[in-house]
């Protein structure tokens, strides 16, 4: 079997288990993959620097990241999570550092392609909105 094809199938399998893509058929995931780039980071590597503006949407396929603000770890994100979308949607710089805690594999959508990516995949956008709603709710609960 063609190596590239087998790698793609493994990726499709991994991606299909992520909450963002759970409503999509395998064929839909395959046709979506050309719109994204697969990016890899080493353990300890900076993925996003606070204040950066051209971040783009990162969707974690494997590994974990730390969300760090002024040396404090605010949260850990892992498989099924995503980051960088707020900066793209608002056109504002990022507010925290993101550091890979382990070897990291992400799907990456560049800032200029995010709008098109989401409009082309409304089920993914809906799932993203659900997660944002859950984040908002949790933040509100913490404020109480």
């Amino acid at each position, binding site marked *: 079997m063609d190596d590239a094809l087998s790698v793609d199938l493994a990726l499709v399998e991994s991606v299909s*288990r*992520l*909450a963002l893509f759970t409503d999509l058929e395998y064929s839909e995931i395959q046709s979506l993959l050309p719109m994204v780039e697969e990016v890899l980071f080493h353990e300890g590597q900076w993925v996003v620097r606070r204040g950066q503006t051209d971040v783009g949407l990162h969707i974690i396929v494997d590994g974990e990241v730390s969300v760090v603000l002024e040396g404090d770890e605010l949260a850990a994100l*892992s498989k*099924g999570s995503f980051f960088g979308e707020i900066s793209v949607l608002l056109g504002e710089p990022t507010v925290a550092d993101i550091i890979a805690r382990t070897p990291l594999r992400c799907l990456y959508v560049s800032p200029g392609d995010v709008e098109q990516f989401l409009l082309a995949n409304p089920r993914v956008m809906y799932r993203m909105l*659900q*997660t944002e709603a859950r984040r908002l709710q949790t933040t509100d609960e913490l404020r109480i």
Partner: protein
Amino acid sequence: MDPTVQASEAAQAASLQNYLPIAEHGIIGDLHSIALVGTDARIDWYCCPSFDSPSVFGGILDRQRGGFYRIAPAIDEWIPKQLYLPDTNVLITRFLSPGGVAEVQDFMPIQRGAAEHRHRLIRRALGVRGEMRFRIEVQPRFDYGRDEHETTFHENGVLFTSPGLSLALETAVPLDFRGSGAYGEFTLLPGDTATFVLEQVPETYVPRSYSEAETREAFEETVEYWRRWLSQSRYQGRWREMLNRSALTLKLMTYRPTGAIVAAPTTSLPEQIGGARNWDYRYTWIRDAAFSLYALLRMGFTEEASAFMDWLTERFRETRPAEAGPLQLMYGIDGRSELTEEELLHLEGYRGSAPVRIGNGAADQLQLDIYGELMDSVYLSNKYGAPIFHDAWMDLTRIVDWVCENWDQADEGIWEVRGGRQNFTYSRLMSWVAIERAMRIAVQRGLPGDIRRWRSSRDEIYAQIMAKGWHEERQAFVQHYDTDVLDAGVLLMPLVKFIAPTDPRWLSTLDAITSELVSDSLVYRYNIEISPDGLEGDEGTFSICSFWYVEALARAGRLDEARLAFEKMLTYANHLGLYAEEIGLTGEALGNFPQAFTHLALISAGTYLDRALG
């Protein structure tokens, strides 16, 4: 022999040894369902959302295909210790290793007030000393392993979605997939915690994060619930710890929405390893529930008696064919009468003990004794709990009238033998109890009833037992009218006050049972070699009979013997004070676990013996 066959048989034998002993488990629950937690911190039995729902984790019935949920050290050598947080059903599994000490707290919160119950199973790992690396692995197998499921990774955990049930595993610990389940590793230092909340959710649910404060609150509320409940106990005697644990365990087997009590929360744990006597006990037997009630009432827990009476009253109302009797011998916890038995051929059974059965084909058996146990519990409930209401009493009088008409026939008897109907002495005895207790209530409360007719039937039964249940040659009461086989069921004769505990007929029966059915204070139900019961295989000693034996000895005034037998029985409990249905030759727990029957008999014997010892 073909070496490959030999090798595969050896592999199969090795895999069958791979099961944790039944006794190496603790139990947690939320009055809807329970989970069995092994000393290896592996949950290998959990049905969601109710006791009789299909299993999600059923590894105890098939290590490979049953499903499990494990949180345990990632290192090779550690020693497990398990205990309950005192006076609660919060279970703590501790791990001791040269590098550190850590523990997992397991509990299922109980909803307060009118809010809809959330089916949550919370596991909280805590670092105690040194450093400990943990592995968590969750491998659900829905519908006893018959349903496929999808696993989806979210920001705050994982969602498992099957056609009939969805569960979220919510945690801040990063998880990865392994097969169709989830896997992760984490390290705890002293004071660190990691929380995992498994919860029944809608399939569109988005897992959320749990703060440490929220988990602590759920923990504290659960602890408080159990301590408040136990504080109603009036028992202050010797063996308080053991009796309280039995009461807490019985309470775990009550189904809060209806007040029903299950006989045991498991199915098909074998009465003999590799044997076929594997039954589903996740239902409400009138007999077991009535005895449970008796035990709880004896300790002062009246709320359960009242809830169970409500459930029972509903059953009286249902119409049944006249020849079947007014009550079925067992029901679903929701009161349903249809409990179709089915064999799950895809599961190998605990250590190869097949078949695994769900449902219960004995539901249709005729067992006349249940009316006796029923009326005894009504009598006690009326005396110590709430007085019986008019409508329920009128229903009961119809039942007593039915017993008067129907007691004189063969039935399947208390042990649900499948070898044909007999005129069992025990069934007659309990028919006598049914009528006798009804007469007492009627007289004490001045309630209406055909007392003259009842008295006539009661005395007829009495005379018949004394004539036909008594075996002149053996000088003992026997199993049924056409045999000389002994049966431990008759140990109840003095307990239900059918016969004086020092009556010569009784004392010689007790001696005969002691020499034939008792082995080092453990009691067999009957000798199955000479009383074929329609089933293949041997069985262990029956713990309930052993406790009845203790009580019978105590009532006969043989207090030293009774006390020693009781203390010996206590040594057969597991490390947490839990009992299965039976005890095998080497003291191993056999049968469904934990079993209400055993715990209630322990309470009964423990309270009587303590009082008798003064």
